[in-house]
């Protein structure tokens, strides 16, 4: 390859080639909007969040309680057996301290996303959420955290009905 070929194709452009319009290009802004059905399992999950509760599901065969809930067990490939109310606290499985937005703009305050293992579910069953009311330097894997809920009147049946999880003493 490199022995025989001296020139590889591919022309890299600079930012200035665009800003100074040295090359031809075209732009398009998509306007695609979606409305999703939450489905049976996540529908119930969201309805329970509106009531200030976290719900999971249990499979008798593999003896797992999982969250977020699903109507079938992807291990046993049969219907889940029962709904189970879980705690609104848990343990930090892992976290990050994120200083950038999705478009790589800097954030003024870092966000602390975490995978939180929810108490009452089987070990390792986490959900993605944010941590709050905590100094980023103090966050630790294994830390116990508790949900901070929106006021009941403001809940709409969304994952954001939990504002964030905060450390518990």
């Amino acid at each position: 390859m490199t022995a025989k070929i001296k020139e590889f194709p591919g022309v890299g452009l600079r930012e200035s080639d665009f800003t100074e319009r040295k090359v031809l290009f075209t732009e398009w802004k998509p306007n695609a909007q979606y409305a999703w059905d939450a489905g049976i399992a996540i529908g119930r999950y969201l309805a329970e969040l509106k009531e200030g509760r976290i719900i999971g599901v249990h499979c008798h065969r593999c003896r797992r309680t999982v969250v977020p809930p699903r109507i079938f067990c992807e291990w046993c490939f049969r219907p889940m057996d029962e709904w189970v109310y879980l705690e609104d606290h848990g343990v930090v499985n892992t976290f990050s301290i994120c200083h950038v937005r999705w478009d790589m703009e800097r954030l003024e305050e870092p966000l602390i996303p975490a995978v939180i293992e929810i108490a009452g579910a089987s070990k390792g069953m986490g959900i993605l959420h944010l941590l709050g009311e905590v100094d980023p330097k103090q966050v630790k894997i294994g830390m116990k955290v508790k949900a901070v809920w929106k006021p009941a009147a403001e809940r709409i049946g969304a994952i954001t009905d939990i504002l964030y999880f905060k450390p518990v003493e």
Partner: protein
Amino acid sequence: MGLRKVAVVGAGMTKFVRRAQETGRELAYEAAKMALDSCELTLDDVDAVALGTAPDAFDAVHMKGEYLSDGAGAWRKPFMRSYVGGGTGVFAPIQGWYHVASGLFDVCLVVCEEKMSSCQPHPQGAFLTIFDHTTERPLGPNLLWIFALEMNRYMQTYGLQKKDIALVSVKNKRNAADHPCALLGDPNITVEDVLNSEVLAWPVQRLDVSPVTDGAVAVVLAAENVAKRITDKPVWIKGVGWSLDTAYWTNRDLYYPKYVEYAARMAYEMAGIREPRKEIHVVEPYDPFDYKELHHLEGLLLADKGEAPRLTAEGVTARTGNMPVCPSGGLLGVGNPIAAAGLMKVAEIFWQLRGEAGKRQVPGKPITGLAQAWGDLMQVGTVIILGIGG
């Protein structure tokens, strides 16, 4: 299984660049044409085309396979596009392999293209939609989160420091300085440079991450009887494997890629490899983030759990080490045009086994090599084992 032997007989690639003036179709053509020229074939010799490319949303072209098909040489030919996220670059040649191994086609052209720069202001805008729309996207996720979460869990589980992991980025970016198509080769980079780079989503820093890239790679696959007519240096596909883990990613062990292990075991079994650490001589695991190379070496059973950083520190994975890993420079150094990056790894093993990798050539005349890719929602593993002789 009644499968035919399949060889890689040619390869080609474009430069990996931040923004390509060429369109995706033009990039695909350049790589495909170079691959055919490298083994002195023309499009008339090609019976089928397998294409790999990642989300349509990068280019805002729905059914991107059709858009790219002419550039990939698929005019009036059986054509299939596969897509398993970042795993695509190794899955597309697996698809090409079963096209030929099945007896259906004698020669299959495999083309992988990615043009990420089209998506403004950042291709993450398209990537973000891999998060669950109901339970995750309302939290305002950043794609870096899932990697940062995995990396932190990996560090915590094995008591690793950032400097242990930064060594991978240093090794690969230095290796890439010898690659004529590389975007981010740097012969002088140090661990301090990585540790001092901007913190994006701790523990992920700027130089822990591969860049947004445009580029294309192609390889030519041929059945045994045809391959022997085309070249006296065929590189055989000895084994393939792929596996997909659950999309409930927060319910998984984030410190160990089980799906890579399943894929690797499938490929080792097919290749008749019992002791991969002895029998695999050169490795190109997927390294879009530095910790991922370590993760994947462990998943591929080429290092004990938590031990891959030690192998890196001891130089075992250096180009001149006992088990060279990413001699190409990997995604961290050559660049990361998603699907093309995976196929670049297959092409690199092809060149390494033929002794044609130029300055990147690993010593010791390797006879068996492995390429692996990973992707989707951190959950797909694709593995291909190449070998000469036998």
